[in-house]
């Protein structure tokens, strides 16, 4: 089975469309959306509708912290994220808010766990930025493979039994063989707001038959998304910051 992963779409329609087009062209049997459908980006309603549509066709979707904050509030967020969520709430139908905030925190499929932030406490949204944090997550699940988003930086952590974890940054389009006697945690890069200094939208593919994991980067119309952000009712300085982030990928 070929499984496509999209994480951290963040209301960026052009980036999401580009990833769906690329993954569709390469072919997949299962789509997994790893949370944060909205927040920051200018098209939250369109992205939510699209995700619901994909879910109806079989995609698995988990809740991200930005999705959750639509109901739980934004107290744990930084100012930029908080104000973007306040604006996002004005652009979503009550039905969409209900949908996004009721998504499950994780999905389990055979040896694979799909979760937005980490496996130890999915609703607390702690980040995995180091091998130690990845190891903590891997030790607290019996799933051999975990797929996450949240940091917006593609990374792969691997660990053999009784040994510490190590990190590896996947290279675009280079399949990584996945061993059956090792634990892995893949942080899938972001569709809608990459932060690894590469502005191209990121999605990932895991082929269960070949046991290979690959990340792909797709160019999209950044100027279009940036322009839409500038045209929102968000404060101008803030919109400018969000737009600029897309161009530098950080």
């Amino acid at each position, binding site marked *: 089975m070929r499984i496509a992963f999209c994480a951290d779409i963040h209301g960026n329609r052009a980036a999401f469309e580009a990833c769906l087009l690329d993954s569709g062209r390469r072919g997949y049997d299962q789509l997994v959306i790893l949370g944060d459908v909205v927040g920051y980006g200018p098209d939250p309603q369109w992205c939510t509708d699209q995700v619901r549509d994909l879910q109806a066709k079989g995609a698995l979707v988990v809740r991200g912290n930005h999705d959750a904050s639509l109901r739980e509030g934004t107290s744990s967020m930084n100012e930029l994220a908080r104000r973007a969520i306040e604006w996002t709430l004005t652009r979503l139908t009550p039905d969409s808010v209900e949908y996004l905030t009721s998504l499950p925190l994780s999905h389990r499929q055979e040896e694979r766990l799909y979760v937005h932030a980490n496996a130890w406490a999915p609703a607390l949204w702690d980040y995995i930025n180091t091998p130690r944090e990845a190891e903590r997550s891997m030790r607290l699940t019996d799933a051999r493979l975990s797929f996450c988003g949240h940091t917006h930086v593609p990374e792969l952590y691997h660990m*053999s039994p009784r*040994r510490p974890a*190590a990190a*590896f940054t996947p290279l675009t389009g280079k399949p*990584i*063989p996945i*061993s059956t006697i090792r634990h892995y945690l893949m942080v899938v890069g972001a569709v809608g707001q990459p932060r690894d200094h590469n502005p191209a939208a990121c999605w990932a593919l895991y082929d269960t038959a070949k046991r290979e994991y690959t990340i792909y980067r797709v160019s999209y119309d950044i100027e279009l998304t940036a322009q839409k952000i500038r045209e929102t009712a968000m404060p101008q300085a803030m919109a400018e910051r969000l737009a600029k982030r897309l161009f530098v990928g950080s």
Partner: protein
Amino acid sequence: MESHRLRAGRVIDGFKLEELVHTGGMAALWRVTKAGETRSMLMKVPFLGEGDDHSAIIGFEIEHMILPRLTGPHVPAVIAVGDFAILPHLVIERLPGKSLDARLKDAPLSPEDVCWLGAKIATALQDIHRQHVIHLDVKPANIMLRESGPAVMIDYGLARHDELPDLLAEESDQPIGTNAYMAPEQVLGIRTDPRSDIFALGVVLYEMASGEKPFGNPSTRAGMRQRLYHEPRPLRALQPHIAPWLQEIILKCLEVDPDDRFQTAGQLAHALRNPDQVVLTERAARTKSPGFVKRVKNWWQGQNRVIAPPMRVADRLDKAPIIMCALDFSVDEADAISDAVKRLVRRLLETDPEARLVCLTVLKTSLVKLDEALDQGGRNIYLKRLVALKDWARSLDLLEESVSFHVIEAVDPAQAILDYARFNSVDHIVVGARGHSTLRRYLGSVSSRVVAEASCSVTVVRLTFTGEDDDTSSVHGATPEMDHTGG
């Protein structure tokens, strides 16, 4: 997982176990057969039972990951890969004969044998490095020779593929490798430098030439760290008949600082195949171990060594390419074309200061008069061309050790250029092309054949003409016509 219960006659994934060939610390090797398969095959099955050493399993995991991604004559062909979850195994071609270890029982070998064997191994390493892999366990037991000639590197249990996760990344609390052969930086836990393989090959060459290991076979960490400041005894102190150029090559491989070694295995192979072009330094002249003051100085440098940040294998190779320029002094526009070639070569060398330039000219001999080495004035044509080559390169102001000159005789110049480039691991050919002429359109040109058939990048330099209607065909400067063919 049931690797311990294997016995002859059992069939695994269609392969019948015939005979247990070898049992190592990590895996068992079985000779296997399969209906319809004529190749001689080995199945490698790791020990994965309860209580087995975990690091042994990682070695097999690495080989399982890397070996199927390598191709070519310098690696054993992979025939089948077993599912790790059921019974992990690798079926690979069985190479006839024994490893280099067996040959070393007769060491010291003759300098000629050291040279041709060394060049073959260096060529194999260059090919593996080009495929993004650093072997990191180069030693005689891991080197075999095909009957057809090429050296084959076996056992990738410690190898590193720079596009894949390093499964030993978290094991580096201990130096990983074979103590006698490990490079200094490997002793320090660095697993990212292809030049570590050049150091290990230097140890192998030293052993072949002298019968002794340059750093002995230390079993402690302190003993292994000695190579960070300990200069090996000069070969000529052990074997006075060893030529200075061979000592130069081997001691250069064994430099503590990777920047002081050959920068690519291709450059090492080139030196071993062209001893007359080796530039002798103080290394070649050494006849005894360094004195006290030098040892203290080396020790101090060893303690204060700065480790350069890692670089991708491909970037490392790109930094030190072998660039070959093929020059033709026999044509009318020779001066203008060779000047244009020179301007391009100068620019290439400015971007890659560690590049090695090979200047080549082909002396076209006719099939009938093979031995006509003198021109009408009675001068030796070969020497004349060599002087012309050196004269051409003089204004490039190159260091002596970064350039070499070759006049080769051939009936077919294009074929000679292609063969030379392939044999010497050349990364980039620069060749001049004459202007257009109706005749050449029918006969084909040297440059177009080189472009079509080379196995590396080719840049064709052509003089720019003003246009068809200009009957004087006056030359207006020269622009290199970039015609890069895939590598």
